[in-house]
């Protein structure tokens, strides 16, 4: 049950495309036995040795060696510079040209050890081991592989670019939506507050004039207010169908009920009518001002009906009793507005949360948001949801491997931390390594140790 897991996830969205030259090195013109194991970059250094009759310094400058000591199978330089072609120096490196394939620098420990390391066989020259030259075949295979890889990368780059474009569009759209929603939220908030006040005033009037509000539950049943009381009224309401989410609609109803007892506060005279009037007058002009940008139902209705009720209430505060149907109407308005407000707020918070995420320098990981990738390894299903969490599932049991933490290693790794606690050990965690490809998928799962 290790809690560090490595998932290699094949993602498109190539970050770096590295195409190395295939036939970088042409055959060296300095082929001589004493030049065995020397890389092209070092040829000048050794040419200097051969042309001078005296000793030259080891590359690390510590000691000196002469021509006859080059590749004489005895280590004179601690850094191995006198023995590029033998195993005499533990710190040495052997260069195989591997014509037809990629040149390689080997540890000197591989020279004449009976194992063919260079495809040209040049590391085994003591006659004990015969190494066929396999560079051409190996090179061909490698080139083919590289070609495929390049093709994949190229295709991947295109997909990635498209992905980035899409992300940009989406983000702009979402940012626009967010700012619009924020405006609406502000307005709606005002309206809701105003409605609350209206309701308070209405309730106050009703109590004053001995009218029992239709929907006010008896005091002792405030706790089980519910749809059975509210719904018949909603049915009458023409706008009911316009409330898209019923679940949300319940919330304001509840809020309202919670508000009702606050008339007790009114009874004690904490809120005076003059305050109410003043507040409303502040709001009023604003309501009428915003019609230019809005075609929302509530704005329209506000102008037609609400306004008249407002006026009715606040003009005749101390004169005429409030019409019961008006009161119900206000109540309805409140329900709908706060439902809408709560919806907008939830959307705002979702968008804010999303846009806050690190989608990469070019927003190339934008499309991962809200997506999950699954990989099956033996009997486990590993589920990785970027920006959220990762789990390991077996049948109905789920082990949390971690919550989204961040990208690491220049966006090549995703980190999930603080998963379920490992028995007698730390919390589980997960690293997701990203690799360029054509599809977003989990390709491999590894668990280096049970509890780490």
């Amino acid at each position, binding site marked *: *049950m*290790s809690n560090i897991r490595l998932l290699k996830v094949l993602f498109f969205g190539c970050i770096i495309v590295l195409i190395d030259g295939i036939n970088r090195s042409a055959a060296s013109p300095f082929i001589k036995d004493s030049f065995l194991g020397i890389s092209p970059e070092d040829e000048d250094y050794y040419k200097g040795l051969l042309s001078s009759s005296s000793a030259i310094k080891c590359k*690390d400058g*510590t000691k000196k060696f002469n021509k006859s000591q080059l590749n*004489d*199978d*005895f*280590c*004179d330089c*601690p*850094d191995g510079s006198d023995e590029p072609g033998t*195993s*005499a*120096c*533990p*710190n040495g490196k052997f260069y195989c040209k591997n014509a037809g394939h990629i040149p390689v620098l080997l*540890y000197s*420990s*591989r020279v*004449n*050890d*009976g*194992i063919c390391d260079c495809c040209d066989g040049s590391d085994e020259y*003591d006659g*004990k081991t015969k190494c066929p030259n396999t560079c051409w075949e190996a090179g061909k295979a490698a080139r083919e592989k590289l070609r495929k890889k390049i093709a994949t990368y190229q295709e991947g780059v295109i997909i990635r670019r498209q992905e980035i474009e899409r992300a940009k569009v989406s983000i702009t759209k979402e940012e626009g939506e967010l700012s619009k929603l924020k405006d609406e939220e502000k307005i709606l908030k005002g309206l809701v507050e105003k409605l609350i006040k209206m309701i308070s005033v209405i309730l106050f009037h009703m109590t004053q004039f001995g009218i029992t509000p239709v929907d006010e539950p008896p005091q002792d049943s405030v706790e089980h207010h519910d749809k059975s009381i509210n719904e018949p009224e909603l049915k009458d309401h023409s706008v009911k169908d316009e409330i898209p989410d019923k679940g949300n609609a319940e919330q304001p109803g509840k809020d309202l009920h919670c508000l009702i007892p606050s008339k007790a506060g009114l009874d004690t005279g904490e809120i005076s009518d003059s305050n109410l009037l003043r507040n409303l007058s502040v709001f009023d002009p604003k309501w009428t001002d915003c019609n230019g940008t809005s075609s929302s139902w509530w704005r329209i209705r506000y102008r037609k009906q609400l306004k008249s009720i407002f006026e009715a209430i606040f003009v005749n505060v101390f004169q005429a009793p409030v019409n019961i149907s008006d009161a119900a109407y206000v109540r309805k308005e409140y329900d709908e507005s706060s439902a809408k407000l709560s919806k907008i707020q939830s959307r705002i918070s979702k968008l804010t949360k999303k846009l806050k995420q690190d989608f990469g320098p070019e927003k190339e990981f934008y499309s991962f948001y809200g997506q999950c990738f699954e990989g099956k390894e*033996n*009997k*486990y299903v590993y589920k990785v949801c970027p920006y959220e969490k990762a789990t*390991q*599932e*077996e049948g109905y*049991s789920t*082990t949390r491997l971690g919550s989204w933490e961040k990208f690491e290693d220049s966006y090549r790794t995703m980190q999930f931390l603080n998963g379920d606690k*490992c*028995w*007698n*050990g730390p919390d589980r965690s997960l690293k997701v390594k990203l690799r360029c490809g054509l599809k977003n998928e989990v390709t491999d799962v*590894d*668990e*280096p*140790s*049970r*509890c*780490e």
Partner: protein
Amino acid sequence: MGKPLCTILFLLLFINCCFSWKKDEFRDCNQTPFCKRARSRKPGACSLIATDVSVSDGDLVAKLVPKENNQENSENQGKPIKPLILRISAYQDGVMRVKIDEDQSLGPRKKRFEVPDVIVAEFLEKKLWLQRLKEEKNEDGSGILSVVYLSDGFEGVIRHDPFEVFVRESGKKGKKVLSLNSNGLFDFEQLRDKKEENEDWEERFRSHTDSRPYGPQSISFDVSFYDADFVYGIPEHATSLALKPTKGPGVEDSEPYRLFNLDVFEYIDDSPFGLYGTVPFMISHGKSRGSSGFFWLNAAEMQIDVLGPGWNDEFSSVLMLPSDQKRIDTLWMSEAGVVDAFFFVGPGPKDVVRQYTSVTGAPALPQLFAVAYHQCRWNYRDEEDVYSVDAKFDEHDIPYDVLWLDIEHTDGKRYFTWDKLLFPNPEEMQKKLAAKGRHMVTIVDPHIKRDDSYFIHKEASQKGYYVKDATGKDFDGWCWPGSSSYLDMVNPEIRSWWADKFSYENYVGSTPSLYIWNDMNEPSVFNGPEVTMPRDALHYGNVEHRELHNAYGYYFHMATADGLVKRGDGKDRPFVLSRAFFPGSQRYGAVWTGDNTAEWEHLRVSVPMILTLGLTGISFSGADVGGFFGNPDTELLVRWYQLGAYYPFFRAHAHHDTKRREPWLFGERNTELIKEAIHVRYMLLPYFYTLFREANASGVPVARPLWMEFPTDEKTFSNDEAFMVGNSLLVQGIYTQRAKHASVYLPGDQSWYDMKTGTAYKGGATHKLDVSDDTIPAFQRAGTIIPRKDRFRRSSTQMENDPYTLVIALNSSKAAEGELYVDDGKSFEFQKGAYIHRRFTFSNGRLTSSNLAPLTAAHSKFASDCTVERIILLGLSPEPKTASVEPGNETVDIELGPLVLREGKGRSVLTIRKPNVRIAEDWTIKVL
């Protein structure tokens, strides 16, 4: 890995509940009736006298009977005690064997168990046919003595009344060396019928009941070591090398040293508590005389007290003990069996070890790869994990020879099988590693899953090959696979059947590069009393488990090793690592110190534990590098590698709940440090292999206490922080965090050369040395020559043809000598003479290589083209410029070079450049 791991977790919880180190999980002496009884007896309580002393069949024999009219004898409770038979035999090289058993002619209730297959056949051939018996009247009033010749300078003696057996230096006034029953504590509970029908013989411990159908049958006696300053040996305990007294005035209340093979979860680092293995062999050492040894061949639970000076003062008047000799008394107690004891006269420490291994066998010569570095973890998860670890070693140019697979590689802990998901292609995997000269080891434990579809279980249960419980049914215990039964390895037929399971056909997925690890063979039984098998379980020949418990793991180890020999047609030396052990285990493979913990104190105690094993014949041993339980901090891990590189058996291992800790996981610097530590081991492989051959020939261990090399230097006697690797290297671990200095005592009158810098330090002094993170203190003794191979490969396999470096550390008379042993590193051909054994001698400015192998009788030859590429001379002045090589009279350069190639730092040392002499030939190099 959710679910299977959950299963393991539950198991772990279970284990945790059952054997985490809690004192009360295990019996102490007071809860063990035979121990409590023996420990409470008073000196002089033994009333037996020797009668009818005579020589018979080349042995000295006598009867032990209670002294007549002995009023104090309350132990026989009014019933006549039958005589015991005492038999003393002498063997070549100063070994005296003493057997005491019930008189078989009187038809005892049951034949008491004598441990078979421990004493080697060659030993029995060394028996001396005793001819004469000398009667002596002792002047000090101690009565009549019967004396026989033992070896030149030593005699075996029986004192008649009270009975005492001892070895003394020859002559009437000869000093005592070793004695038995000098304190009159001898006691032998003879088998008898129940006194009355309802006499309760059962023993209860926690929820377990031992039916004890044969009743009490314990044996105890005292053994005295004369002129001894310290006693050592009797593994396995996590404690100091020199055994601390467990009883006596001023000694803190302590348990006796317990010898009872147990699977102890998270053992503590300083305790007389018995661990996984047993060797009831004690060796004494003192400045004035040297060493002697005592070995009791007995496989039942044993408890041993080391008695502090003055423990018997109040009884001194009755005991007649010599007052002019220093002495260490010990009390040996065993639950069952017979007295079959061996006295070793020494006089040197190496003599005692040689004498002991002449009885129980010389350590096997391991294959070369087994002497190199082993990489283990519970568990390398699957083939991919194996390949990736293997590749990482290459990526970092770190050599290793063996990759290990723990229990999770099996199909449900059914040994000889593979988990098909994790290891679908085991043969291919082994072959890929073998292509780089690397080997693999899989675990095979003695608990067999009770699953009718498992071929081992099916056969074993059909053939009746399992140990039976007290009612005669196959014993069923709980271990890794769940419900399990245990093979009865004391039966040679079952061992032979088991050995056949290792053939390539039977062990599907095994290849010639696969070797074996025996774990849990104490045996570990999770739900058994003290986590092992009930004592009333029954073995082959109606032997109770109590009688052979400590040898169970030994027989399992033996059968496994025999299996590998069979598998290779007798041509491939086996490698089997075992956790449990018994005298003779050295013939079958390596042991390790079990499940230690990643703590500094466990690093420290690993040294006395390994040294003790070496003293008792088991030379090839090591501790888990890094510590099995817990996560070592990086510094501890590095220090452990630096010390572990000098363990005879060098393996890193870790529990599966620990963090991964392969050498490259701790940053570049620490990777370098660990790599360097491993390189030191590979560099010294020719030296180590030569030492393993020495152990194989003489029993003298690879890792030795300092006093074994410096037996007259008292300062070394209780030193268990430093040790010798062979006779040439002294190593001391760093056992504390962030150490800046270390005090190292360098014994003897010759200098010591720092292995890394070549700096010389005076002998016979304690040096306060600066300590860096890149090495632990390690010194070459002046007067020695160490053969090295300074080139590194992927594994030891590729080093075969690499040239040698000889490091010559000259003593004050500008002389030095050393040896090199080389063979094919694999086969048994060396036993037919196919090896190279050279002696290098440097004196008068000349280095000579001469042959040490017998020239005649070599039926087989081993050839090597290897040459010497470099000879380093430490302590030579004035500095010569050239040397001439004979034959050929070639001149070679002498220049200044590094002592260790990889370092390139430190003082430059005199180096003979490319003498290119062949290792197999005679030659002389003269320094000009």
